[in-house]
């Protein structure tokens, strides 16, 4: 993704992604990883120089291994296991896509791949979709491959101008946006009156014990800082810690009952949570079944973030991966994905293609944002590894004590 910044539309310096925590599945995946991690770290904890590239098997193996988040691609109306755009890609190119929804939390995913990356080995995947922050970390460490622009004519033609030159990856040498979205407040209007500010969410007595926050500090703490009037493009350690303190108070008072990944959707639907922090697209998807679900940007502003496609360095089907990335920048294909996932679409021309798929979505600012919508969005600064570790340490004490 790319982010809009306070002043301009996507792409001012220092965009950074919010990760989408998908804890449910993360739990399962990490149960296995937990036992392996020490073993792997003991083998390769020092950063090593990357070795030479593995041979590209694209011409002999017509497959591409694509790892993405859950609920982040179109699905067949009658069969949720089918993804029409992926089938279309296979029909068009003869390349089979092994699609796995195994990214649940960008930090956790990165931590799991780290030993493989550092050992200079193939991750078994050809396309990954990290958040911008994790993507940036991988670029700096040399874990992802430069893209071959000659194989990506659709991207060159159709990527939104505002997304073309982010500070952390000038000229998009390594990354191509997948989807962009926002973090704000969600509430069930059949259960509670509107919640318009973070302060209301954290203190309003009628919401006591009925509030969930997002487990990733980049979502929750940044929104609290916005509420405190902090410029999240330049915030300091003290401002971060002050915001953590505000959240801690809300936890201590019993206002906040849980920190969640995208499983806040279940809690909203079963009535256990009446208001929470949420990702825009999830709530739009929920509205089909539960019309009371409402997404609002907090009065002090919402966060905008993005997830990007990258090709890891030792990927074995790099040409096929390029072909797939290029395919998703066909406006008709991008519109089909957006019609399902309801996040902000990074592809020019998708808006007019949407007319054919679902005319009601053409003017939805959560998919095709206008200037007024973007004026409410903010991008937070990227933090380095040491800061991230310090923040995460302070934050995990709030989310689990």
């Amino acid at each position, binding site marked *: 993704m790319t982010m809009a910044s306070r002043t301009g539309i996507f792409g001012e310096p220092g965009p950074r992604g919010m990760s989408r925590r998908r*804890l*449910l*599945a993360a*739990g*399962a995946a*990490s*149960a296995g*990883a*937990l*036992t392996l*991690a*020490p*073993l792997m*770290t*003991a083998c390769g*904890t*020092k*950063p090593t120089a990357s070795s030479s590239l593995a041979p590209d098997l694209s011409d002999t193996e017509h497959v591409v291994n694509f790892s993405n988040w859950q609920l982040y691609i179109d699905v067949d109306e009658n069969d949720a296991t089918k993804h029409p755009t992926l089938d279309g890609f296979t029909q068009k190119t003869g390349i089979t896509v092994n699609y796995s929804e195994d990214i649940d*939390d960008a*930090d*956790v995913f990165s*931590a*799991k791949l*780290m030993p493989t990356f550092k050992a200079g080995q193939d991750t078994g995947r050809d396309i990954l979709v990290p958040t911008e922050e994790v993507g940036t970390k991988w670029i700096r460490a040399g874990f992802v491959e430069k893209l071959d622009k000659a194989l990506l004519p659709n991207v060159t033609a159709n990527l939104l101008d505002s997304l073309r030159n982010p500070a952390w990856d000038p000229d998009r040498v390594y990354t191509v946006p997948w989807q962009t979205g926002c973090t704000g407040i969600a509430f069930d209007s059949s259960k509670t009156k509107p919640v318009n500010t973070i302060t209301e969410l954290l203190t309003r007595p009628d919401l*006591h*014990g*009925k509030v969930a926050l997002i487990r990733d500090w980049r979502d929750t703490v940044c929104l609290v800082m916005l509420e405190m009037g902090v410029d999240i493009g330049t915030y300091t350690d003290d401002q971060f810690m002050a915001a953590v303190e505000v959240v801690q108070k809300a*936890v*201590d008072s*019993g206002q*906040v*009952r*849980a*920190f969640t990944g995208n*499983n806040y959707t*279940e*809690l909203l639907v*079963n*009535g*256990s949570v009446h208001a929470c922090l949420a990702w825009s697209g999830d709530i739009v998807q929920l509205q089909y079944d539960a019309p009371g679900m409402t997404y609002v940007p907090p009065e002090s502003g919402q966060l905008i973030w993005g997830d990007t496609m990258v090709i890891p360095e030792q990927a074995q089907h790099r040409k096929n991966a390029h072909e797939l990335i290029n395919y998703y920048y066909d406006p008709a294909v991008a519109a089909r994905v957006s019609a399902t996932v309801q996040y902000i679409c990074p592809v020019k021309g998708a808006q007019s293609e949407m007319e054919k798929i679902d005319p009601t979505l053409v003017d939805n600012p959560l998919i095709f944002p206008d200037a007024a919508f973007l004026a409410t969005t903010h991008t937070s600064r990227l933090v380095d*590894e*040491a800061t991230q*570790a310090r923040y*995460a*340490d302070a*934050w*995990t004490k*709030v*989310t*689990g*004590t």
Partner: protein
Amino acid sequence: MSGGAVLATSVEQQEPRRGPDLPRAVGTSRATPYLLLSPGMLWLAVFFVVPTLMLLVTSLYTGSLDQGYTFEFPGHWATYSNALTEYWPQFLRSFLFAGLATVFCLVLAYPLAYFIALRSGAWKSTLLVLVIAPFFTSFLIRTLAWKTILADDGAVVRTLNSLHITDLLTWLHLTEADRILNTPLAVVLGLTYNFLPFMVLPIYASLDRMDGRLVEAAQDLYASSWAALRKVTWPLSLPGVVAGTLLTFIPAAGDYINAELLGTAKVSMIGNVIQDQFFVVTDYPTASALSFVLMLAIISMVFFYVRRAGTEELV
């Protein structure tokens, strides 16, 4: 306990005598036991001993994931004291929750296992399959189902609310604000549910194998049903009880999925801390130190417990 001594003798007499006087089968050599043991020992060496040593070494590293870790003799032991000072409440809470879940499991499992083993007749196999049936679904899905069952607007919570049982539970600090989901009680219930079969099956096995004539003998000697249960059935089922409590307590103490899904920020268990330290903070030494301490704590508790319970009973 004089009755106990008599029983012990009778139990021994049931078993065929084993020992040095048992003739060695033709064609076996002294090496045979070791050959038979070797696959298991190799497995243990590769998948337990080596990882454990690596865990220990990792816990003594200094540095960060980003900069690279280094080991300097004799290692950075301060990680242990820091981790323990910081996270001892989560350790205590884990053992408390696991202990409660073990007790609940025992209370639920013993009558169930007793019924299946001694009173179910033709239904025995069916009931056993039912005990195991939850394993046909993923652990995660089963735990998630509890979120729906215990939802604030669900039938369970509404019923308990109207009976004012949640008020009592809140008074006991087990729940908060008329809800059950995202409270300590929900975590303990989740643990109890998930590990119940591990308690039922060993107790069932012990009871099923018990010679029913011993109970008859006790009754012939004028023991009441209660006395027969207490002095005959219960001691004979102890191996199952001990095995069951171990199989429940050990995984429950290290579990983090239940606390993650059913708990709240204020009641995380040590497994949650380890998960966060590994994957969110990526502080491998602290995570490893916590894992190692957890392992040592559990091993010493188990050792103490098994000694108290009597290893000779563990057939």
